[in-house]
């Protein structure tokens, strides 16, 4: 490795680490515990953890098949589809929220249908939070899995087929087990992303304590009134995210190595 890479690498690291240091330096750490145990904060934390868990589950249930289809299908136009799947990664979060609102809002075509036929209103509900989180987090899972599928190739799957296994058996007994490490890292990334979701949530789901106000939204609310408690909550969010990523790190590394 050329030593010169250390210079930009250090700058890159500093760009991520220093802002967090800035947060820590300005915070009265002794007051953090009392600031984060307010009812509003704990409610928001619980809502965040629960919705992020459900979103991650939804990402797995929907994202695994999608990744397999994207990696293995030879249908024309699959490359365009792949680009579309990555869209939530690059969309400004507020735009994502607006898009969901235009689909599922009361005047959105699906939302209108749901309202007329079932009397269901999606915005301003916990379900809306989960949809927004799944929307932004799923690409992380799909990208991890698709990468693993492509770099792994389909040699084992072909061999299984030639030995007489049906497609469904191949998927269950060969494809899925090979995917497990990447699934682990992808799920962790999705969970962390869902936990930090803000823009699409506030636009599409609104902000109400106990129903739609997740921890990032609570940080935003507090920033208007009491910056210190907002910073304390932000630290809590950072700690949770770091713990989640650190706990799953060995798997994540394994996943990228494949």
């Amino acid at each position, binding site marked *: 490795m050329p030593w010169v890479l250390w210079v930009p690498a250090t700058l890159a690291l500093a760009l991520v680490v220093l802002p967090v240091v800035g947060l820590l330096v300005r915070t009265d750490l002794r007051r953090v515990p009392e600031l984060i145990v307010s009812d509003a904060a704990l409610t928001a934390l619980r809502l965040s953890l629960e919705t992020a868990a459900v979103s991650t589950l939804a990402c797995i249930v929907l994202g695994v098949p999608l990744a397999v289809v994207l990696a293995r299908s030879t249908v024309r136009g699959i490359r365009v589809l792949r680009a579309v799947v990555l869209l939530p990664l690059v969309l400004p979060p507020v735009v994502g929220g607006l898009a969901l609102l235009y689909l599922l*809002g009361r005047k959105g075509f699906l939302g209108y249908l749901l309202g007329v036929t079932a009397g269901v*209103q999606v915005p301003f509900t916990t379900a809306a939070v989960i949809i927004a989180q799944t929307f932004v987090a799923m690409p992380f899972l799909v990208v991890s899995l698709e990468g693993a599928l492509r770099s792994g190739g389909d040699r084992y799957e072909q061999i299984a087929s030639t030995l007489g296994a049906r497609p469904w058996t191949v998927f269950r007994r060969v494809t899925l087990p090979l995917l497990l490490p990447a699934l682990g890292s992808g799920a962790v990334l999705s969970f962390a992303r869902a936990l930090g979701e803000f823009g699409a949530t506030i636009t599409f*789901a*609104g*902000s109400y*304590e106990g129903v739609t106000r997740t921890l990032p939204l609570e940080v935003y*609310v*507090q920033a*208007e009134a009491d910056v210190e408690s907002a910073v304390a909550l932000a630290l809590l969010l950072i700690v949770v995210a770091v713990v989640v990523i650190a706990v799953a790190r060995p798997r994540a590394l394994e996943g990228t190595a494949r």
Partner: protein
Amino acid sequence: MKKLGALVAAAALMITGCGSSSGGSGSETLTVFAAASLTESFTALKTSFESSHPGTEVKFNFAGSSALVQQLSNGARADVFASADQTNMDKAVQAGVVDGAPSVFATNRLTIAVAPGNPKGITGFADLARGGLTVIVCAPQVPCGSAAEKVERGTGVTLRPASEEQDVKQALNKVQSGDADAGLVYVTDAASAAGKVGQVDFPESAQAVNSYPIAVVKDAPQAGLAKQWVEFVLGEQGRAELQKAGFGAP
């Protein structure tokens, strides 16, 4: 590396508050930090101020009042600060970022924004507590939300909002998009969206009138001009423009 350098320089420029004196030719820039609800009226006032002060350019930073106080107390350079409520101006005074006593130049009160034609037949504040209505208010931490809370306390009507928005425009947007049946917003916001939303005024809004104070920022680079802008806003022309937007007299 060169690109990186440019990026770092751009970031540094942003941090130090770019364009506080946009160079040479004797032109002077007046930087006004103002509450987002003043966007339309202050932008209209800028034109006549600039024409009566040749060589002067007025630049705005419109945002939520508390965000502006944040920026000012973290060292943002500005000449004038206009807040949408007393609370945030008090914060600015306490933080020592404004010079002298602030003066109130306008007032604002709440109204109910509804869909055009008022299809849900909302006639007053108490109607908002009706079941089956999706009602949006502002979070109590922001001025429009604390005003809504005051009205709730005064009337004894407890709302069960679907969402507490972070700023009044978001609340308005949700009524405009049709996702909410009613929203508590300022008269000025409802006026700015006239045609797209209907407006149901209620007498109890008099219980929570917001005042808008304005002050010169401490160590303002253009202290003289800043004083003139404040006087201009407080003066006849300022009052007329603000009244046009729906603001009340101080």
